[in-house]
């Protein structure tokens, strides 16, 4: 059996083993390196051991942010209460709030893309500008955003808007243009108005693909959010990672990175399942 055979079908066991192999290799390599470094230097903080990681996770999930409340204040609280005031939780809430503001602002972008694709005058008015806007590197305008909107929440949300919305607008525009003209004509012959055709024919057909496009843009969205938080913020997951970097707090940074990946995975999974549930007719190409 050749591994480079196009017509081969891997068995169930082979699929399972191969798909987890890189994860297992990564974990083994990590702990091998950690052990080796700790043998040479017991105070090494670059590659924390399992015990150091566990202590870091406990500290992040059970201790409040040092700036917010002194540890003595939460001594008598339950585990749930302590988690609720922990830095991991407060950072997650702060980042999630910004994330969902950014996500919510993508919906007007979808409507703009839809109208651009359906109504020709709308399209010619916006298309050239959006195409230009799409080429602007969002991070390059970060200083302008901080000057224009201050260093509060608005500038971070605006960074997400500038970074992700042009892509979503253009994606929706292209998806709208991809709807066969027969479908539009059919809608009109069934008595639909222009807006009926836009919302009840086209939007309903492209919606699962638009959701997919938003789902695939979650990572850029998080990237811009993290950039904003790392530069100017007093809370949030990226703020914490940036802060701990100064103290070489790898035992907390690594769990934070994995936590962010896990949260993003959850949002991605939820969106995929919702898409499947809400649009049973939709088959991905």
């Amino acid at each position, binding site marked *: 059996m050749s591994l480079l055979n196009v017509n081969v079908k891997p068995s169930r066991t082979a699929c399972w083993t191969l798909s987890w192999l890189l994860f297992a290799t990564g974990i083994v390599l990590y702990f091998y390196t950690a052990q080796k470094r700790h043998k040479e230097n017991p105070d090494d903080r670059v590659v924390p051991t399992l015990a150091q990681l566990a202590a870091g996770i406990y500290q992040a999930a059970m201790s409040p942010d040092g700036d917010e409340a002194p540890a003595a204040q939460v001594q008598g609280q339950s585990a749930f209460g302590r988690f609720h005031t922990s830095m991991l939780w407060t950072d997650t809430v702060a980042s999630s709030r910004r994330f969902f503001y950014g996500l919510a602002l993508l919906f007007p972008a979808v409507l703009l893309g839809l109208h651009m694709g359906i109504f020709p005058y709308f399209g010619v008015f916006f298309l050239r500008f959006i195409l230009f806007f799409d080429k602007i590197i969002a991070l390059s305008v970060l200083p302008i955003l901080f000057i224009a909107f201050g260093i509060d929440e608005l500038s971070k949300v605006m960074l997400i808007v500038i970074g992700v919305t042009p892509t979503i607008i253009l994606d929706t525009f292209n998806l709208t243009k991809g709807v066969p*003209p027969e*479908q539009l004509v059919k809608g009109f012959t069934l008595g639909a108005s222009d807006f009926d055709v836009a919302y009840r024919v086209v939007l309903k*057909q492209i919606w699962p693909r638009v959701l997919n496009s938003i789902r695939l843009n979650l990572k850029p969205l998080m990237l811009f959010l993290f950039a904003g938080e790392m530069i100017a913020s007093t809370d949030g997951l990226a703020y914490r990672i940036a802060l701990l970097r100064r103290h070489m707090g790898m035992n907390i940074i690594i769990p934070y990175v994995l936590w962010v990946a896990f949260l993003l995975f959850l949002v991605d999974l939820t969106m995929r399942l919702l898409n499947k549930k809400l649009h049973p007719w939709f088959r991905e190409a």
Partner: protein
Amino acid sequence: MVPGSLTSAAPAVLDTPLCEDHPLIRLENIHVSYALKDGTWKKVLNGIDLDIRPGEFISVVGQTGCGKSTLLRLVLGSEMPTEGSVLVEDREIRRPDRDRGYVPQKYSLFPDKTVSGNITFGLEVEEFSLLTRFTPQFYKRRREFRAEAMRQLIKMGLHESDAAKYPDQLSGGMQQRVAIAQALVMKPKILLMDEAFSALDPGTRAGMQKLIRNVWKETGTTVLFVTHNIAEALHLATRVIVLAKNPDADGSCIALDLPVPDHEFAGDYAALAARIEQATGHMRVDAS
């Protein structure tokens, strides 16, 4: 007959209200040209005049690129002529509307809606706007719409259990049956079918031909049926419009208007088929 002229024995004076001899559709001196990338123009239709009376079944045949579908789109209102005018009930048409049902070859159904949803779509948009469709009245009426959809479905030879299926779960023939039901539920004056049966296998196609013929007889709807199959055109229609290359060799198409005799006159039928074959060049009467 003068090539390019299709005005048959319709009266010259237009009477209102519409009588049977009064044309329902009138194409007056239609010219259609498309701009090419090199800046020149390609003439497709050249001075077509055509009157279609209510209740007629018109087949349009012709070689590929002769403007069959263009002619249909002109009546549909999704395309405007470069010159001339298209009138339906003496009103110039500017866009597709609910008085003209449409069954294309592909994409005839909305993929996001079930069979029932596809059929009731027209009824729903007619009565309920985007906002009023969330009122209790809508849900009450929707039950009636669904009952109507079920009646149409059975009339088209489909089963009640097909109502909950999505278009991609149906065969090509079933999809076209649903598309016809979807169009007919709006009670259009004109049914426009663009190569609607072209993608079907011969058996299914024969069944669909029988179905559309019965629907036409029952409803009396005027049908404009575009096909590249001469046998199908002759089998279905009361009149055949043949689009053929202009002998003046400017690349555009002219039209021949051929009334179809009753089918029992086999001699006339064969002669007519031969005439169409001759007019369309290489097109042959294929078995349908």
